C-alpha cells in the first residue's frame, strides 16, 4: 500500500543549504518530501527595494554598505557588483557597526547601510542605530528592507496552493523570537513546527520529530535546538528592536504584499531613514522574464522546474535572487547537484 507523502518545508535558507550540503534528501525515505521556503532574506527582497538601493548608489558622495550576499543580486537594470565596477562606492561589511566606522571616517559623505534580513539581523541594526545616535552621527542612514518572518509563515500555512504538513523552523530566528509566535501556526493552522539547528544531525532529528507529530496527529511547537533556543527567546534583543522599529506592510518577492511583515524606523529615529533622506526615481520594476524565483520562494515549484536554471541563470550570472545568495534555494541546488 502506498503511504501518503509527507511534505515538510524548511523555512530557512541556511537549512536549505545545509540539507543540500549534507545530502539529506538522498537518504530520506521516499515518502518524505522536503520543500524550500521563503527564508532567504536576499531572495524575498522585492525588486523595487533592490532598485531603490541601486539608485541611491548612483548619487555622488554616497557610500553604500551591505552584506556580501546582496552584491550580485540583479535589480531591474543592474546590480551592486556592476555599479561598483563602474565606480560606485559600495563596500561589503561584516557587521552593521562597520558602517558606523565608515561614516566616522568619511564625514563629508553620506553612508547608507542596506538593511536586509529577518529577526536574526534586525536587532543588531537597531543597536547600531542607537549607537549612531549616541555618537552623534549625522551622515549614517539605514535603508530598512527588514522582514518579519511570522506573517509570511502564516500566509504559507494558510495557502491553498501549498499543502505543507509541517515546518522545519529556523534556529537562528528562533533564538531571538522564542517559540510564542509559532503557537498560531501550530494551533490555528494545524501545522506542526520543530525548531532546529544547522548541523546535519540537528536537521535529521528535527525531521524525525515532525514526522512523529504528524503520525500521531499532534500539532505543537517543539525545540530540537535547546543549546541555543529557549521558549522566551532573547527578550533584550526584541526590546532593542521594538525601541527602534515599527512594523509596516511589506512586499515579498513571490508572496506579494503581506500585512505587518516589514520594519520601518520609528519616528524618533527618522533622521537615519535612508528612504526619507534620498528621494530617488525608481525604474519600472520588471521581473526577469522566465524567472520563477517567486514560485520557488513559495515552495510551489522547485529550481529544476525553471527553464533558466543552470543554463542562463548560474551563480556567476544570476537572473533571479535565489541563485545569488549563499542561502538561495537555486544556489543550493546548483552547487550541490540536488
Amino acid at each position, binding site marked *: 500500500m502506498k503511504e501518503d507523502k509527507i511534505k515538510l518545508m524548511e523555512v530557512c535558507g*541556511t537549512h536549505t543549504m545545509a540539507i*543540500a*550540503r*549534507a*545530502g*539529506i534528501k*538522498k*537518504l530520506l525515505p521516499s515518502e518524505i518530501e522536503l520543500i524550500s521556503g521563503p527564508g532567504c*532574506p*536576499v531572495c524575498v527582497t522585492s525588486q523595487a527595494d533592490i532598485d531603490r538601493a541601486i539608485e541611491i548608489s548612483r548619487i555622488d558622495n554616497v557610500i553604500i554598505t551591505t*552584506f*556580501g*550576499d546582496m*552584491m*550580485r543580486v540583479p535589480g531591474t537594470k543592474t546590480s551592486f*557588483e556592476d555599479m561598483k*565596477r563602474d565606480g560606485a562606492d559600495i563596500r*561589503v561589511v*561584516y*557587521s552593521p557597526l562597520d558602517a558606523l566606522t565608515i561614516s566616522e571616517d568619511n564625514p563629508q559623505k553620506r553612508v547608507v547601510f542596506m538593511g*536586509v*534580513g*529577518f529577526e*536574526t*539581523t534586525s536587532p543588531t541594526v537597531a543597536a547600531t542605530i542607537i549607537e549612531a545616535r549616541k555618537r552623534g552621527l549625522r551622515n549614517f542612514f539605514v535603508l530598512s528592507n527588514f522582514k518579519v518572518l511570522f506573517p509570511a509563515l502564516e500566509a504559507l500555512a494558510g495557502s491553498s496552493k501549498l499543502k505543507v504538513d509541517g515546518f522545519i523552523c529556523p534556529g*537562528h530566528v528562533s533564538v531571538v523570537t522564542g517559540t510564542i509566535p509559532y503557537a498560531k501556526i501550530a494551533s490555528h493552522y494545524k501545522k506542526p513546527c520543530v525548531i532546529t539547528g544547522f548541523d*546535519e*544531525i540537528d536537521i*535529521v532529528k528535527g525531521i524525525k520529530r515532525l514526522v512523529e507529530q504528524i503520525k500521531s496527529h499532534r500539532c505543537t511547537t517543539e525545540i530540537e535546538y535547546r543549546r541555543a533556543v529557549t521558549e522566551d527567546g532573547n527578550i533584550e534583543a526584541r526590546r532593542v528592536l521594538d525601541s527602534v522599529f515599527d512594523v509596516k506592510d511589506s512586499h515579498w518577492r513571490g508572496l506579494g504584499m503581506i500585512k505587518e511583515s516589514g520594519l520601518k524606523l520609528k519616528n524618533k529615529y527618522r533622521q537615519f531613514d535612508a528612504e526619507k533622506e534620498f528621494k530617488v526615481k525608481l525604474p519600472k520594476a520588471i521581473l526577469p522574464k522566465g524567472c520563477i524565483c517567486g514560485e520557488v520562494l513559495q515552495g510551489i515549484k522547485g529550481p529544476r522546474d525553471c527553464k533558466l536554471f543552470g543554463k542562463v541563470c*548560474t*551563480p*556567476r*550570472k544570476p537572473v533571479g535572487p535565489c541563485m545569488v*545568495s*549563499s*542561502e538561495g534555494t537555486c544556489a543550493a541546488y*546548483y*552547487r*550541490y*547537484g*540536488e
Partner: protein
Amino acid sequence: MIGIDKNITLAYGNGGRLMHELIDMLRSKFSNKILNELSDAAEFKVNSTRLAFSTDSFVVKPLFFPGGDIGKLAVCGTVNDISMKGATPLFISLAFIIEEGLEFSILERITSSIKQSAAKAGVLVVTGDVKVVEKGAADKIFINTAGIGVIKKYSLGTKAKPDDVIIINGPIAEHGMAILNARENLGFLSTIKSDCRNLNFEVKRCLKASKNISVMRDPTRGGLATSLNEIAYSSNLGIEVYEKSIPVRANVRKLCDVLGFDPMYVANEGKFICFVKEKDAMKVKHAIGKGTRIIGKVTSSHKGEVYLKTQIGASRILPMLEADQLPRIC
C-alpha cells in the same frame, strides 16, 4: 572576451572556473607542448638534465598576517610549485614592484623574511629586479618570483591513475581564513594562522618512500575542491573524497560557519595532496608525518567529476568554484 563578459572581474582570479577559462585563453595564444601540460611548473630537458621551472606573483593584502607575510609567501609559493613537479628547487629570482611611499622599514621586514624563508627551503636568490611606480599604480608592494629545480628521482604529471589513493598533509583552509580575518578587521580574536611554509622536504620524503606517486598538487587559490576537480578533469577519471576524513581545525571551521564559507574552497599555502598507488599509501603517509590523512580515492565512474561522501553517508557532487564566496547575512 570570455562568454558574455567584456571586462575582467575579480572572479577571474579566484581559482575557480572563470580563472581556468582565462588561463586557457592565454595558454592557447602561446600553445606549445611544455606549456600545454599546465602543471604547477614546466618540465623540460637541458642536455641530459631534467629541470622544472615556475613563476608566481604575490599581491597579498595585508602584507603581514598571522603565520606569514608577502615575502615568505613569495618564496614558499615558487618553491612549492617546483616541488609539486617532483623537483628539488635550487635557485629563485626576485622582482619587486613598489608603490611610491612604501616605508623602508616595511621593505626591510619583507626582505629579511625572504632571506629566512629561502635559507629554510635551501634555495638561493640569484637574480632580481626593482621597479618603483607612482602612488595608486600598485598596492604598496607586489612581488614576483621564478624558480628552477632539478628533477632527480621521477617527475610528477597532471594525471592520476585509477584506484590511486589521495593523501593530504594536514588541515585545510587556514591560509585563506587567516588572511580574511586579518584583512577585513573582523575583530574575531582568532588564533588562526596561515599554513604558509615550504613543502620541498616533505615532497622529497614522499618520493623516497614510493615510486608510485602520480600527481601532487598544492591546493592554493580555489582550495582543495578546485585542485581535486582539476585533477579529475585532466585525468578523465572520477574522484571520491570522504568529508569526515578531511581535516579542518575547529577554529577554522567555526569562522567559516559564521561567514558562510565552505572550507573546501578556501586557499591553502602549506598543504599538498598526493595521489599514490594504494599499496604505497601508508608508506607515504608515514613519510610525511603527523596530521597526514587519506581523504579519498580515484574511481573509474563519473569521469571528470568529484564526489563527496558527506558526514552522514550521502554522496553529492563537489563542483568547481563558480563565483567568489561572499560573506552571508545570517
